């Protein structure tokens, strides 16, 4: 198992390298001259040229790429922001906890509520509880998350005056962003959970468990859910990726100074070191959640576990 994880972590480094290459290339070919933007509107041609030299933009593509990869992966230095002239990592560390808090809470909510709602619907198959839950899920899948966010601001901030609409502060500032990040994923998960639970409903081993005299509740949570879990895990993994990707938009709606908003601002001000660092972080976070998803498969299914540790199994047989 350890071996497998190490293998996967090595693979992750490769993916991150490739992502760096892609993001660097995309930004390199983005039209517009960052040096001009940063030097300011009043700068002379000479000032801009100077700026280009300072920023290293006068070097060739290969040289610039080399510099970037070298400092990122060998020196672990994400560089300085072109706009603020400060190390990107400092600003990231300040913003990271906010983004992480929203992301992880949304993931937890996604996981928990999605499964509970799905099981609730599946165990009431065909009854009104099922239709209601699935109806809600369908609606929430269809609503754009940033629009739901705006509507929530209207309702909870403007009308009911319960929650702050913008910015950061206490926990109450995070409630709406977390819910909005999680909503779509919860709905997708609930649908997936319901479908997979219904898929194992009539399996023979469920009848076996019933014939043993096991209680309905334990059959659902202990026998059906684990067997239905594979596609649910996949859907949860996708949900995690969606939450990560939705960060910039959600942070932008709620004006939360997290990494997503940092990245968006940096895109607009052509502050490429910041963009690159943020994208790398998002890629890293996605890769970690994908690894967790794969480990979760192994945790649930002994057959997959066995495949991960083939060496050990041969010894015992």
């Amino acid at each position, binding site marked *: 198992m350890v071996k497998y994880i190490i293998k996967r972590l090595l693979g992750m480094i490769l993916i991150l390298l490739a992502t760096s290459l892609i993001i660097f290339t995309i930004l390199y070919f983005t039209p517009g001259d960052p040096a001009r933007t940063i030097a300011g509107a009043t700068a002379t041609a000479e000032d801009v040229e100077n700026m280009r030299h300072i920023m290293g933009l006068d070097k060739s593509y290969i040289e610039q790429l080399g510099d970037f990869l070298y400092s990122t992966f060998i020196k672990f230095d994400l560089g300085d922001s072109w706009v603020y002239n400060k190390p990107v990592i400092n600003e990231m560390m300040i913003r990271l906890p906010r983004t992480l808090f929203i992301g992880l809470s949304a993931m937890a909510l996604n996981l928990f509520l999605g499964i509970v709602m799905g099981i609730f619907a599946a165990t009431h198959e065909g009854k009104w509880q099922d239709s209601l839950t699935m109806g809600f899920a369908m609606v929430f899948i269809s609503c754009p998350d940033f629009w739901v966010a705006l509507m929530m601001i209207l309702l909870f901030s403007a009308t009911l005056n319960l929650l702050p609409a913008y910015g950061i502060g206490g926990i109450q500032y995070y409630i709406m962003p977390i819910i909005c990040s999680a909503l779509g994923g919860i709905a997708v998960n609930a649908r997936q959970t319901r479908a997979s639970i219904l898929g194992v409903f009539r399996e023979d081993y469920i*009848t*076996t*468990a*019933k014939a*043993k*005299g096991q209680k309905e509740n334990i059959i659902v949570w202990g026998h059906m859910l684990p067997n239905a879990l594979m596609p649910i895990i996949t859907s949860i993994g996708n949900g995690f990726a969606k939450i990560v990707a939705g960060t910039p938009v959600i942070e932008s709606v709620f004006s939360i100074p997290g990494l997503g908003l940092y990245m968006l601002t940096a895109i607009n001000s052509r502050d490429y070191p910041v963009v690159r660092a943020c994208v790398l972080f998002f890629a890293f976070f996605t890769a970690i959640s994908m690894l967790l998803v794969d480990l979760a498969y192994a945790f649930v*299914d002994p057959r997959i576990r066995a495949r991960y540790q083939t060496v050990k199994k041969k010894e015992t047989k």
Partner: protein
Amino acid sequence: MSKADEVFLKVEDLEVIYTSGKKNVQAVNKVSFELKKGQTIALVGETGAGKTTIAKSILRILPNPPAKMLGGRITLEGRELTSLSEEEMLDIRGGKIAMIFQDPMTALNPLMTVGDQIVEGLLLHNDYDKDAAENRAKEMLELVGIPKDRFVEYPYQFSGGMKQRVVIAMALACNPLLLLADEPTTALDVTIQAQVLDLIRNLKEKYNTSMILITHDLGVVAETSDTVAVVYAGEIIEYADKRELFINPCHPYTNGLFGSLPGMTEGESRLKPIAGSPPDPTDLPKGCAFAPRCPYVMDECIESKPDMKEISPGHFCRCIKAGKEI
């Protein structure tokens, strides 16, 4: 002696339908039989005749919907099972009555170790703590011929025959009074079949368990059972002591079953299949269900359903001609 002769399980007028869309399928139609302590009754019949449904309705584990028990009484040791609450039924299931399923490949939860699956039932029906339950489960594994260190292995690490042994160990772990064995050998290789059958028979004798054996294999019936009920289209059409039935089969369908059995000693070279196929359960004939396939059919058979007749003590048959010369 008198204790052994007591009726231990009594099924009366059991009726089950399956609903699919607007159609109703009469899966079990007024089935009645009795079972004495320690004895085995075999339910014999073709696939889809309703045998498994009978067994599952005794445990009340029929999937509802689509299945629905319309009527009938099932009495175990004087207790009426059909009127018990769901909670009371939980004690019966796996504790008093256990079931062995047809297909061992799918009957075990693939994500739990076989040990845990046996322990699960043990903890439900006994006052064991976890260690005691594990010990008992290991004992059961050894009893069915599986080394106890395989306790921690998963179903995918077992062969089909081994899995069926696990299922048997699981069923017998709580010393049930009644064992429902639903085609326990059908999915297995022929060589394994005999072993598994022997195993069931020995364990049954050891614990004096009664058994309802569901099969379509008359060979299995001959080896294992005391009484036989032949099931056709959801009805018992012939019901007798095993010996009596094998010597003196009375219903044309039973005769047909024997005719489609390959003989080892007789000089017959061709099997005699029963012509036609079982009736469409959504559209059962008005009269005798077997009439469309019966070689001796008369107008009377098509018009009205024949009653169950006792043609000799303990031998019942649902045929107009029963007891008369054909």
